[in-house]
């Protein structure tokens, strides 16, 4: 086994899932390294949840294999389930049970000894800011608090790797930031995190490495900086015209413009040759009798990197 393989806590090899002739996940391979936050980014329907479900044993694997800390999920499902913590995309704890009872039940099912599960539940309620809701029923909690308790429940048995499926889905800005803080803090304390999300900002902000999946295939994998460099040639020009704005279709005809969209009453152009695009813009404005009222230039941000990698032209 090579050094690179040794540091893999979760290795996915040629993972494939077919549903009645439809290929949802297509021969994907990657490695999650011990101690990292691994982002699994993709648009809705890309195959993220199917992948996480196969890794956790909730969906059968058509082909390929998943090795977690040396154990194959298909051959040793119960051993793997002891090693992993899973937070599904919905907060599905038991509604009539209190926060405390939910955590204790999870501890019981993972075989955590009695004294240990009491200590762990108290610790987690404190860490997640839920101590004062200890005796509240799960169904009475707000969406954000439910999410926090669902993550806490997945940590009751001190898993080696935590799988989070869209952890901030449907939360407000404050709720999102609280979860982000928790994920970072957990990782700082040594928890390896596998994070699936369709939120580009979230993936780039939290992850040490990111795999981008689209149509069931991994199209790029690397650190956020690696991914930015893959589209390093691309830059962003924000431009506005007076007395009137041309159409998006006309703008896309300008030489050097890769993608374009309208943002806040101006055009945001992704270009791969700035000089050519600037020349084209000036020529375009002259030809149409327009004035350029605003023009700014900067490097591509995470959203633009993502769109470029998944090949979306005018989103």
């Amino acid at each position, binding site marked *: 086994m090579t050094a690179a393989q040794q540091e893999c806590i979760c290795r996915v090899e040629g993972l494939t899932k077919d*549903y009645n002739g439809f290929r949802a996940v297509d021969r994907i391979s990657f490695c999650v390294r011990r101690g990292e936050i691994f982002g699994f980014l993709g648009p809705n329907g890309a195959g993220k949840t199917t992948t996480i479900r196969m890794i*956790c*044993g*909730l*969906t*059968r694997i058509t082909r390929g294999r998943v090795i977690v800390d040396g154990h194959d999920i298909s051959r040793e*499902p*119960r*051993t793997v*389930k*002891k090693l992993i913590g*899973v937070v*599904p995309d*919905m907060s*599905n*704890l*038991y*509604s*009539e*049970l209190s926060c405390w*009872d939910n955590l204790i*039940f*999870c501890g*019981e*099912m*993972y*075989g955590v000894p009695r004294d240990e599960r009491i200590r762990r539940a108290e610790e987690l309620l404190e860490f997640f800011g839920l101590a004062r809701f200890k005796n509240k029923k799960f169904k009475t909690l707000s969406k954000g608090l439910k999410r926090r308790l669902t993550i806490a429940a997945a940590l009751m048995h001190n898993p080696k790797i935590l799988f989070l499926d869209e952890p901030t889905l449907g939360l407000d800005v404050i709720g999102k930031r609280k979860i982000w803080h928790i994920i970072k803090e957990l990782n700082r304390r040594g928890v390896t995190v596998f994070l699936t999300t369709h939120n580009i900002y979230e993936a780039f902000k939290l992850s040490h490495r990111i795999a981008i999946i689209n149509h069931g295939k991994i199209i790029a994998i690397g650190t956020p900086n690696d991914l930015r460099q893959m589209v390093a040639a691309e830059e962003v020009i924000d431009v506005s015209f007076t007395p009137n704005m041309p159409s998006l279709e006309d703008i896309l005809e300008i030489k050097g413009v890769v993608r374009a969209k309208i943002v806040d009453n101006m055009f945001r152009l992704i270009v791969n040759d700035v000089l050519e695009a600037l020349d084209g813009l000036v020529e375009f404005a002259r030809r149409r009798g327009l004035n350029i009222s605003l023009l700014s230039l900067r490097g591509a941000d995470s959203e633009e990197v993502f769109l470029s990698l998944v090949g979306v032209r005018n989103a």
Partner: protein
Amino acid sequence: MRDVLIHAYYIAKKDLKEYYMKPGTVSWGILFPITFSIAFIFRRGAYSLWAAPGLIALTILFSATSMAGASIVFERRIGSFERLLLFPTRYASIALGKSFGGLFFGLITSLTTFLIVYSFLNSLPVNPILFIVSLLLTVFQSASFGVLLAFTVKDPSQTMTVFNIVRFPMIFLSGVIIPINQLPPLIQIISYLLPLTYSVELIRYSYIGEYSIINPVIAIMVVIIQSIVFLTLTSILIKKSIP
């Protein structure tokens, strides 16, 4: 095996906290069978002593299946059933745990029905030990039947309808209110296929010392075998539910 039982115990404990006051469980599991029993005892007078064991078995069937069914259907609907599949446990633990919840609930309601029967008829079972064994076996059989039934229902909103389609005919065909040997021979064949028939015969023998068509030793064996078969089939269905 020890792990299977421990996990089943935790699941049952959780289910009792979570579901014992759900409206479906209370109405179909407690109110209906007890009201039915009282009404029947009042109406049938002296004939009631013969009918009482059948009513106790019927109470068990309704309460144990309702409890087991409610927990599975509710959890499948809101997605929390998947949580059980994430735990490092065997499918048999889940099937058994879900049955244990129904078992406890069935035992409580059957004892309540027994006390109602006793207070009206002032008659104790002729073989008290066999009566207790019969109750336990019947409760286990009904709970495991309820769990299996809940897994066969595709649309959770149709659960009680499906449950009642299966349960109501048993009232008339399993010897609860009509002796099986008085049914037409063709109908008696159906009676042999119904799980409640064996528990009614068993409880009746332990309570009043007589049975209709099934020897109590055979009834005990069939009830045990049926319980094991129901749980095994449930475990298979849970495994098959993984896409």
